[in-house]
């Protein structure tokens, strides 16, 4: 039986995401999908969902949602003070909701983005084989007040209420793992060193398309002939700005690609907010 989650308050930026669109990059369609795939997959794992079940990704200040029926949920990723009917609940636990229960979020404690998974997944539309919301592709690109998200109401299971996991330190680490990018070798030795030693700070432009770093890396690199870019590609502009492309980033670009983050690097970046300090940890060929 299909139930609905009603959006009483959409929060700063919430959207339905799964693991993204695969096979449409040739048409210029971004990969999209959850910014922190570790957290999202953990939430689905807790609920024994398929790993590509759609979740709700919430940012900084989360939404206020009312569930029309029974629901089994889990919240992972950043600690954004989730509450059920005003009472504080824990991340990384299976939570049972009754009909009419209200889930809301409060103060941001750690991280940037949290993931709300529901047993059976959110059953919103699929476009190009994915439920990930993206402007121009899906009908909606972000939660708005009054929206209703369909789900399958799930009966409470005996003894499943206490499953929980403790995730690793990736939420708070400042170390961002990366491989050298295709144009890394064009940097001077001094710049390569600086890139690995210097701490960088997250700038104010931080969204699903990309995250700009506040500290420049001076360089005299020429633009490249437009080439493919991916989530996790770190571009360097002539003015020295480092841009970490994320899940809604374009598929091609003309700025030198000096780093390519690992999956873990992308997951950690997804949890950074303005002012956070990061340091790149470069993997070399032997690893």
């Amino acid at each position, binding site marked *: 039986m299909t139930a609905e989650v009603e959006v009483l308050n959409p929060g700063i930026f919430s959207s339905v995401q799964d693991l993204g669109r695969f096979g449409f990059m040739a048409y*210029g369609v971004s990969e999209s999908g959850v910014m922190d795939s570790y957290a999202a997959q953990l939430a689905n794992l807790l609920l024994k969902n398929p790993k590509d079940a759609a979740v709700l990704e919430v940012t900084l200040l989360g939404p206020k949602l009312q569930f029309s029926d029974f629901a089994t949920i889990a919240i992972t990723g950043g600690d954004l003070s989730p509450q059920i009917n005003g009472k504080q609940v824990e991340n990384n636990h299976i939570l049972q909701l009754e009909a009419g229960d209200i889930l809301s979020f409060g103060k941001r404690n750690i991280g940037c983005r949290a993931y709300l998974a529901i047993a059976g997944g959110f059953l919103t539309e699929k476009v190009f084989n994915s439920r990930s919301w993206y402007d121009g592709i899906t009908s909606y690109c972000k939660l708005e007040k009054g929206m209703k998200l369909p789900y399958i109401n799930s009966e409470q299971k005996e003894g499943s209420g206490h499953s929980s996991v403790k995730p690793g330190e990736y939420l708070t680490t400042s170390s961002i793992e990366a*491989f050298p990018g295709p144009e890394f070798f064009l940097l001077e030795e001094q710049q390569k060193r600086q890139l690995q030693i210097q701490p960088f700070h997250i700038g104010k432009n931080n969204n699903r398309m990309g995250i700009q770093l506040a500290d420049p890396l001076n360089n005299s690199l020429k633009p490249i002939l*437009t080439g493919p870019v991916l989530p996790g*590609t770190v571009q360097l502009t002539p003015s020295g700005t480092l841009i970490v492309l994320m899940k809604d980033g*374009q598929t091609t670009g003309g700025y030198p690609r000096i780093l390519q983050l690992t999956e873990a690097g992308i997951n950690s970046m997804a949890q950074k907010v303005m002012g956070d300090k990061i340091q790149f940890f470069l993997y070399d060929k032997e690893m």
Partner: protein
Amino acid sequence: MEDLVDIVPMGEKAILLNFQPRINEELLEKILSLKSFLLDKLLKEEVEIINTYSSLLIKYPSPIKDIYGQISSLKKLVKVANIPLKTGKKIFHVPVCYDEQFALDMELLSNYNGLSREEIISLHTAPLYTVYFTGFLPGFLYLGGLNKTLQISRKEQPRLKVKKGAVGIGENQTGIYPKASPGGWQIIGNSPVQFFNKNAVPPCPISAGDKIKFHPISNKEYEEIFRSVEENTFTIKWEDYDS
């Protein structure tokens, strides 16, 4: 393949083949042929392969177990001497209205290069443009073949909103904005054709290797085609292209 410079990992889920960086039709043909060949050999792994001017990117749905082993295998595969040239290219006829309501920067361009509006339109519609790849936005085609006389630098300050279908020129490139978007190109016309339709299979009718010819149309013809596109009754004219 003498144009192949190297094959390198691009993160955990992709491998990049770099060719000599240049915008060249022969190179494009070789790259597209190699792409078909690799898709055929790697199909079981369900990869996606895209090209740009001088690269091929092989993208996997999840982290590659032994990426350097994969790269070794790829290097061996690519060494195969004879990759048949890909066939099946098409020429698409794209209607463009260069009327002043759409040609926002026509006067600027005319002042810059000293050509009349008619001469500009003539030079813009003469070539058979090559579609190199799609990127930047869904359905945004990177075209080669712009007449050098029409080159002009991008706007210092990009427009916050360029109309859907706007046909523009930026440096040595020309193209069409498939949807309303911020943009820095000099706009000289508008095409009512839909270059990206999420409900169509495939969503873009035009792909890498195809050719495009622009045809000037009147305001009236523009409106007719526009309506037809909205009613889903429009089909873009095309024919097979034998090089």
